[in-house]
């Protein structure tokens, strides 16, 4: 483990919401380290704090207490603008509802982040074509999301998340809207890409298929790590 780079490190992370004046501890002191190339699933029942923890790790939400390092940078103390740039360059998101931009074509959706990063046109196009081949959607680049199936849309979302080569891919219930066959296909594809591109994947889920394929399971309960199990 010593030569493996740490991608995420959290130290006593807490997130406390106010619900009608009453404090709700969604995340209650999580210490966690995720290393490069891991295919980790954070699991737990509804309300266990999975999504909140993912939001805090990605900088979409601020921790009430504690520290978060991502790729060696202390993101819990970054300003909004710094976080925005940091997310763009270091994190890829995959969501349950795909969240593609419906007015953009597959190619435009995938190259969106690269446009924000000012990647030259030629390189953008090449990278889009390469990733489309990886996710099995070559030839679909000019289609718009409403003309794709749920599985195809999620493939585009995966391509979009990976194309800018972020250090971490965060996937929040990525299979929840898919039938089990499509979900399994996508998970196998993500596992392949994880190995091929050496990217770190972190899932939030209660889908057994993901748990089966994950190399590490972090089980949350009441906002705390109940069990952290590395599978052989």
């Amino acid at each position, binding site marked *: 483990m010593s030569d493996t780079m740490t991608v995420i490190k959290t130290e006593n992370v807490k997130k406390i919401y106010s619900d009608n004046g009453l404090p709700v501890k969604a995340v209650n002191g999580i210490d966690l380290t995720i290393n490069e190339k891991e295919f980790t699933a954070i699991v737990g029942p509804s309300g266990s704090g999975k999504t909140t923890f993912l*939001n805090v790790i*990605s900088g*979409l*939400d601020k921790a009430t207490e504690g520290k978060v390092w991502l790729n060696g940078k202390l993101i819990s103390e970054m300003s909004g*603008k710094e976080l*925005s*740039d940091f*997310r*763009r*360059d270091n994190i890829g*998101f995959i*969501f349950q*509802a795909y*969240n593609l*931009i*419906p*007015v*953009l074509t597959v190619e*435009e959706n995938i190259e*969106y*982040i690269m*446009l*924000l990063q000012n990647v030259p046109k030629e390189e953008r196009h090449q990278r889009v074509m390469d990733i489309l081949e990886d996710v099995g959607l070559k030839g679909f680049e000019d289609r718009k999301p409403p003309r794709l199936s749920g599985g195809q849309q999620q493939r585009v979302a995966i391509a979009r998340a990976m194309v800018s080569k972020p250090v971490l891919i965060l996937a929040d219930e990525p299979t929840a809207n898919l039938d089990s066959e499509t979900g399994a296909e996508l998970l196998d594809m993500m596992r392949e890409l994880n190995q091929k591109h050496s990217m770190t994947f972190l899932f939030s889920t209660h889908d057994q298929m993901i748990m089966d394929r994950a190399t590490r399971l972090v089980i949350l309960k009441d906002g705390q790590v109940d069990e952290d199990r590395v599978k052989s």
Partner: protein
Amino acid sequence: MLMFKIAFRNIFRQKRRTIFTALTIFGGFVLAAFSIGWADGSYTFIINMFTRNRLGHIQIHYKDYLNQPSIYKTISNYEEVAEKLDDMDHIESWTPRLFAAGLLSLHDQSTGAQLTGIQPEKENQATRFRQKIIKGELFEKADHKTVLGKGLARVLQANVGDSVVFISQAADGSMANDIYEVCGILESGDSMSDRMAFYLHLQDAQDLMVLYGQIHEIAVIVDELGRVDMMTDRLRDAFTNEDLTVEPWQEFAKSFYHAMKADMEGMWIMLIVIMLIVAVGVLNTVLMSVLERTREYGLLKAMGTKPVQIFKLVLYQVNILTFFSCLLGIALSIILNYWLSKDGITLPNAFTYGGMEFKHMYTTVNLRSILLPLITVFFTAVIVGIFPAIRAAKNDPAQSMRTH
């Protein structure tokens, strides 16, 4: 460019709503452009009718004549003035006049009359005098003939061929009186002045009033109403050393000018109403689309899009929609205003303004009728779009992503 592309395509996502908003903006634009074109056209028409009918665009008098008219305040060298006027550009025509008040009689009827001495050809060029004669004809030379206003002829029960007697006091203090044959009856459209109008050939009038070679007024017609101020300045410069005053119609027809100005103020109220219509339409649409796309804006932010880029995205949407709506609005407004500037609108009920009767009204196509609505509509749309744009830019991505 990316935000512009998304904004452009977003416009077509909710076609019905886009059409409704575009129609609101388009309708507001056309309404404003038409109203301004109509107002400007009508006012130009009324002013032209008013000034070209009798008064002229610019008047030249002996100094202080306008404030305190007197038979003795005459322009004695008017032929020299006339020569200078003939040499100037943008002067369509000019006409000399001599004025005096007196008593006009026919048989046992007598009434007060306003004598105006005119040069028939000059007066005809300047005020289309001949066209206003409804009975008989205009005198050609000085041979003791007169044209009476319709109202004056009615009071005296005079007709063409009758002889009338005019009595007044001449400039040398003597009794001025003579007999003139009525050769024509005139209806100028200004019933008040027609009630007193007694026209003689300028030379007859000068002989009667013992004002040989002298006049009281030169009425000048400029080729375009918009050049009146510029020409007034040029004439003032030209006659600065000649004890003459040069006044534009706004000065010698002050009450008419102020009434017109007050009328034109109403246009601003109309523009405010249009701003409100556009504001409500745009605000409703943009706010709806921002609320509907909360999740999408959250996603864009999550991926690293800056708030200012999302702010621009929303405003681009507003601007693109406004731009195309205005483009259509400009096209229709120009066609509509051009058509009505040629054919005019026949009013169901004629109205009088400044003593003149108006039966038709015309619009005009001018830069103002396009620019003012353009500025008003764009300004309103952008201002109204700012609030939803800020709302979209400020959205919290974590919370937005939970929105369904």
